[in-house]
């Protein structure tokens, strides 16, 4: 008989953790919901919020840390503190640090919403610490709880715990009462797992009182029920108890059967442990494997990202390249257009220049050639002393040199105008006197053609002009007037003051005049030489060109009035000198 109580005690203690375990699994939601909604009042406290969420996640260590943080703050709210202590006590209890749990629970005031749960836990702790009397008082407080689900409490468990406490205190009657009551409730809820424990406990209760007849059926019941459950521990206990019972009844045969079964469950239990270990290892391995896979995937991902980035960058690079390429292409087209336009202008200018050179060289050559032949004639005339012939020849020579000189002079001035290297200074000039000076050179020519000339420019007329420019303009215009005048014609130069800012003078001849087309052609603002119309008298056109450009350079204006067969008026306007 000595062996029996020991084995029975073992049995009792195994049952409580199981109960606790099942409690947590089943009714967790309502209780958790309650906790959550009721503690949400204090959600603004970050630490409390964390503690709460860790509590709900059953992460006890973190719950302890954050609830401690919250408690160490100076904010003192009774409710808030109650929750904190509750979380801490709960956590400590789960970690089986009962002393600390008790301390924490002691801080909680009795008006705390979940105080019933606190009582339950205090009871359980007392039970664990074998303070059965205390445990009974805690449990009895909540024995008649109205809404146990709210606190995640099962009344049957409470009754069961009271029963066990009485059993330990050897108050068998009370124990019997409570255990049976508990078993009845559990039978109703058909909680097999619980029932095995409950029947085992009831059996132990009777067995302790040596009421074997009453005990054995319960043992048997527990054993039978244990066959239907998977928990090896309970099966093992039930079989072990049966073996002890049969042994005590001296039915060794049966006892051996039970013992064998018990051994089997023991092995199974061990096996299960081993299997668990293996499973654990496998799990670890699997986790490692998974980790490896994850790592590989990560690496692959990295590679993919790198590749994608590479693609992206190269795409951007290509795009930029394309854009710059496009830009430069457009620029090139633009500059090409400009170059083509410039080329056309250059070609035109070049053609002009070529034409100019051909005309100039032709004219010069013929002039000099004429001089050469004239000189030979001169010598002959001198030898024969034919003085009348000599005189005409000399006059002829003089005319030729004059023409050639004018051509050369214009050519030179034109070149200077192009290179802008000539001296140019606008000063105030008396128009009359400059006309006189220039006309002086043409006196022989005028006389030769019997053309009358008069300069009636107002003596007071003063213009702002570069002296040499004005002379070039006058020289060419007078030269033209003479060239296009018939014998016995008339050339007049006179002022025509109609403008406040400009001083205009007219060079009028009674010559052949020009058509409207020629007139417009001459007035065109172009660098090109005008076409030759009349091979006999019209020259290079260089003179008119020079006149126009000189007038332009001196900020003057130029106009022509002409009538075919009647004569031409060349009108030059130059800025007046303001005195």
């Amino acid at each position, binding site marked *: 008989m000595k062996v029996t109580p020991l084995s029975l005690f073992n049995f009792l203690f195994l049952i409580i953790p199981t109960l606790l375990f099942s409690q947590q699994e089943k009714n967790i939601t309502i209780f958790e919901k309650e906790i959550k909604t009721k503690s949400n009042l204090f959600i603004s406290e970050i630490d409390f919020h964390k503690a709460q969420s860790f509590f709900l996640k059953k992460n006890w260590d973190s719950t302890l840390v954050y609830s401690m943080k919250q408690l160490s703050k100076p904010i003192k709210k009774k409710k808030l503190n109650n929750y904190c202590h509750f979380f801490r006590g709960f956590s400590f209890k789960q970690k089986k640090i009962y002393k600390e749990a008790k301390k924490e629970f002691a801080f909680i005031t009795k008006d705390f919403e979940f105080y019933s749960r606190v009582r339950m836990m205090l009871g359980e702790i007392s039970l664990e610490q074998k303070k059965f009397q205390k445990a009974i008082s805690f449990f009895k407080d909540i024995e008649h709880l109205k809404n146990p689900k709210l606190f995640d409490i099962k009344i049957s468990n409470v009754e069961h715990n009271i029963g066990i406490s009485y059993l330990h205190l050897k108050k068998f009657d009370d124990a019997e009462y409570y255990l049976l009551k508990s078993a009845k409730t559990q039978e109703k809820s058909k909680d097999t797992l619980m029932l095995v424990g409950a029947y085992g406990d009831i059996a132990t209760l009777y067995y302790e009182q040596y009421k074997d007849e009453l005990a054995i059926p319960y043992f048997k019941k527990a054993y039978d029920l244990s066959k239907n459950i998977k928990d090896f521990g309970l099966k093992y206990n039930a079989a072990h108890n049966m073996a002890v019972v049969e042994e005590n009844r001296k039915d060794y045969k049966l006892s051996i059967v039970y013992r064998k079964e018990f051994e089997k469950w023991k092995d199974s239990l061990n096996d299960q442990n081993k299997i668990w270990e293996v499973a654990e290892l496998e799990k670890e391995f699997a986790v490692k494997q998974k980790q490896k896979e994850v790592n590989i995937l990560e690496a692959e991902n990295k590679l993919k990202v790198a590749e994608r980035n590479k693609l992206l960058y190269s795409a951007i690079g290509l795009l930029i390249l394309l854009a710059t390429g496009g830009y430069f292409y457009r620029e090139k087209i633009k500059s090409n257009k400009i170059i083509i336009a410039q080329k056309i202008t250059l070609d035109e200018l070049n053609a002009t220049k070529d034409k100019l050179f051909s005309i100039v060289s032709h004219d010069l050559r013929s002039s000099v050639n004429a001089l050469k032949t004239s000189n030979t004639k001169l010598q002959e005339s001198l030898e024969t002393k034919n003085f009348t012939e000599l005189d005409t020849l000399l006059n002829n020579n003089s005319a030729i040199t004059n023409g050639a000189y004018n051509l050369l002079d214009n050519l030179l001035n034109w070149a200077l105008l192009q290179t802008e290297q000539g001296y140019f200074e606008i000063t105030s000039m008396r128009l009359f006197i400059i006309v006189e000076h220039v006309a*002086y050179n043409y006196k022989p020519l005028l006389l030769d053609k019997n053309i009358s000339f008069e300069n009636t420019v107002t003596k007071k007329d003063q213009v702002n002009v570069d002296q040499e420019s004005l002379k070039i303009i006058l020289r060419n215009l007078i030269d033209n007037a003479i060239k296009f005048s018939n014998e016995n014609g008339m050339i007049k130069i006179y002022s025509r003051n109609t403008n406040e800012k400009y001083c205009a003078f007219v060079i009028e001849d009674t010559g052949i005049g020009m058509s409207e087309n020629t007139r417009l052609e001459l007035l065109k603002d172009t660098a090109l030489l005008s076409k030759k119309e009349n091979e006999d008298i019209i020259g290079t056109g260089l003179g008119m060109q020079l006149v126009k450009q000189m007038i332009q350079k001196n900020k003057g204006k130029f106009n022509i009035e002409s009538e075919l067969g009647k004569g031409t008026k060349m009108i030059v306007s130059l800025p007046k000198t303001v005195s």
Partner: protein
Amino acid sequence: MDNISVLIIEDTKAESDALVKVLEANNYNIVGIATSYKDALNLFYNNKIDIVVIDIFLNGNPDGITFAETINVVPGAAKPFVFLTSSTDRKIFERAKLTQPFSFLMKPFNELEILYAIEMAVEKFYAQNDVFLSDEEDTVISKEYLFIKKGKSLKKVLLKEIVFIEVEEKYCNIITEREKFVILISLTKILDLLDNDIFSRTHRNFIVNTEKIVEIVPSDNLILLSGGHKATLSDTYKTIIKKVRTLK
């Protein structure tokens, strides 16, 4: 009236010959023809010169400009001058322009142009622009001479030789010991330009050379001048008596 003395600086014989011909034909007195910078300075300092005609390029160098620069820096020595050139090179012109007052003439030139250029040079040098070309005036006054335009050319009259000037509207009768002639100049201008120590106004219409005064007869309002000339003295200008050193 005397002819104007001209110094020609020109290294090309044909051109200086043509120039001499034109100038002499117009009653200018050619003092000399220099063909180099050194010659030019010699002739310039050893003769009484009124005007210098300078060819910019002497033997290929712009020594003409150097000459002008040289005479310009000597105070009192400078005389009116005209540059002659066949070059329109801008750099040369920029340098020549610094020898103020600057007048130039482009080659080739005709008679009218050279005479005009000389007149311009005189006007510019004595800072009395627009005299010879205008119808209102014909005389430029320097410290020593009157430069008077006569026909196409210029003449000069030594101021010291003037006995008195009689103003008649726009005209001034200039009476020297030898001759008498009319110039076109305003009274205000002539008063302004003549030396006040020598020439004094004695009447609304009379300006007298105080050095030529023989006798002043205040009672008759008369001033007797050398050469038997007479000028009127009005009450307004009787202070002249104090200025005259002695009475003979």
